[in-house]
């Protein structure tokens, strides 16, 4: 495998979206190519930092309530008036 192919597969390898066969070729390329190896590490780190650092907020209670009401039959009228299309 050359660097070009390895880079095409890079994100898929990070995300576990690579086939067994592709992964074998990819990993053996990393063993002999420092550049791709570094890039792979960086890509994994970047994914991790996004996962770790981006905070997930709780939806406001008002929103939760109104969504719950959606599935309440009595609010059907409200639903009709809210539909703007």
């Amino acid at each position, binding site marked *: 495998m050359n660097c070009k192919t390895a880079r095409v597969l890079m*994100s898929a390898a990070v995300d576990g979206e690579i086939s067994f066969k592709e992964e074998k070729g990819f990993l053996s390329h990393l063993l002999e190519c420092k550049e791709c190896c570094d890039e792979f590490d960086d890509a994994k780190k970047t*994914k991790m930092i*996004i996962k770790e650092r981006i905070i997930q907020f709780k939806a406001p209670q*008002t*929103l939760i309530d109104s969504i719950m009401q*959606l*599935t309440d039959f009595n609010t059907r009228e409200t639903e009709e008036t809210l539909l703007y299309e």
Partner: protein
Amino acid sequence: MDKPAPTHQTKTPTKPEALSREERKKQLEFQKEAVVHLHSLYNYALHITMNPDDAEDLVQETYLKAYRFFNSFERGTNCKAWLFKILKNNYINRFRKNSKEPGKVDYDLIKDFYHSIKDTRRDSSEADTDYFHSLLHEEVYQALHSLPEEFREVIQLCDIEGFTYEEIANMVDSPIGTVRSRLYRGRKLLRVQLEEYARKYGFNTGKDQ
């Protein structure tokens, strides 16, 4: 998951109090399958609208539509992905089309919003000097938002929401190969941004410029 598809037309019951069995079943299933993703949808809406009020509206509309068309949701597939797709379409149709001023973003509001919860995760146990770990939510958030939308979008859907490439491809109406290369390029761009922040704070990123 083997759920029988509703066979009766239940759209317009004659008496309001007579909630049909089918309708009740639909409600329960909707709660189990769709409402559980409320927080994810809200967060995603917050990211794309960058305005808490708009985010609420968007999520509300998404659920209204999802409930109306719940019968067309293919049982056994990822409901979260289905909801995200609806949300995205809603966003494009409404917020993009109707806003005369594109990018009308309430930055101050967003900033306050994020400030109020800042620092909550800083001192988790990683005692290392790796510059990546020095970054806070706010910096990572800003770096993410500095990316062109097509890159930011796939990174969010993949790294934050955990969708598969196939699901993402479907959501962004592009082939899987495109998703793959956008992720590759997006992460590279993001890294450059993050390194810039880190350098600003005096961390050695190992890359001189």
